């Protein structure tokens, strides 16, 4: 008959697990949150302050909620913190797209996104030493064009494609209807595609 040696099991404390889960969650979202906020407020220091405020608000109020709820809560808190920042800056009006912005030259009948994408040459072939520099250049151009988008279009676009939220979640975070989200996204995509084409970016 053999003897079995049972070692005591060290189970992680629920508190430590919860802290670790919160750390992991914040680590996963903080960079995108910073970049998105920086696009909106156009100032890195202010963007950092806003993201920090949103992180602390989430931790203080919702750390005990299930971690599945954190992404949506965090985006909502971040949106509110950004709004608060604009209120404090007394330039709130600049945050919202005016009707002129929404109905600006996005709907250019002469530009066809489908055509642009379908006829784009495949540059995914060989990777040369120049590709790194090219990618960096493309990134700078994309960032600059995104920062030029009207605020609501940019927010909708980045929430949908960067945060990978669905239309309903994006509408919840932005506090608008799902139809508005679709409109904002569509216009943002068209504006970006047109701007990138104009700057000679080959897809």
């Amino acid at each position, binding site marked *: 008959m053999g003897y079995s040696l049972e070692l005591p099991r060290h189970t992680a404390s629920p508190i430590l697990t919860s*802290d670790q889960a919160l750390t992991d969650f914040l680590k996963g979202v903080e960079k*995108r949150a910073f*970049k998105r906020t920086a696009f909106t407020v156009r100032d*890195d220091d202010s963007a950092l302050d806003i*993201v920090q405020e949103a992180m602390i608000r989430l931790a203080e109020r919702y750390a005990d909620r299930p971690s599945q709820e954190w992404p949506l809560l965090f985006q909502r808190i971040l949106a509110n913190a950004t709004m608060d920042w604009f209120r404090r800056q007394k330039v709130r009006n600049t945050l919202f797209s005016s009707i002129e912005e929404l109905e600006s030259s996005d709907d250019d009948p002469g530009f066809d996104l489908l055509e642009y*994408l379908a006829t*784009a040459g495949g*540059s995914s072939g060989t990777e040369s030493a120049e590709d790194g520099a090219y990618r960096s250049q493309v990134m700078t151009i*994309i960032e600059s064009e995104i920062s030029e988008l009207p605020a609501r279009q940019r927010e909708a676009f980045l929430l949908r494609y960067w945060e990978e939220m669905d239309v309903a979640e994006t509408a919840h975070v932005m506090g608008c209807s799902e139809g508005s989200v679709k409109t904002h996204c569509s216009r943002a995509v068209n504006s970006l595609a047109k701007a990138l084409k104009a700057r000679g970016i080959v897809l």
Partner: protein
Amino acid sequence: MIKPPSKLHITLADDAVHAEHAFGKWVIAGLGGESPVLNAQVERRLSAARWQAVEAAQRIRRLKALDARPAVISYGSAAGLTPWWARLAAFMPVVALTLGLICIDQFNLTQRIEAAAEVDAALLSDDLPPSAYADPGFAEFLKSPRP
């Protein structure tokens, strides 16, 4: 790496939504995808902010634990929750003090009575009658020197 959506074989018959989605994903890949590259200073500040947030969560958890504790280990301050014997116990020091004072008073009274009784007993049991002390001649006799 930025992956162009050119191989998606998008045709005009495809839903424009799919084209938008493909383009959106391509743009996001161009931004650095899920984890964009940031400069070291920004990363340090984000890391510090994250630690502050976790500390804030810990602080709130401690405060909540402190709030919950009195309800468990004491009976609370609400009058309805205090048992009758606990309220009675609050008066025990006053009762003990009163009883102590009464006892001391009784003891002093007994001492005085006993002292008076001793004097009376000595006077009454003496050969000399007590009225002799009221006699001026006897007082004079006591003052006079004895032979």
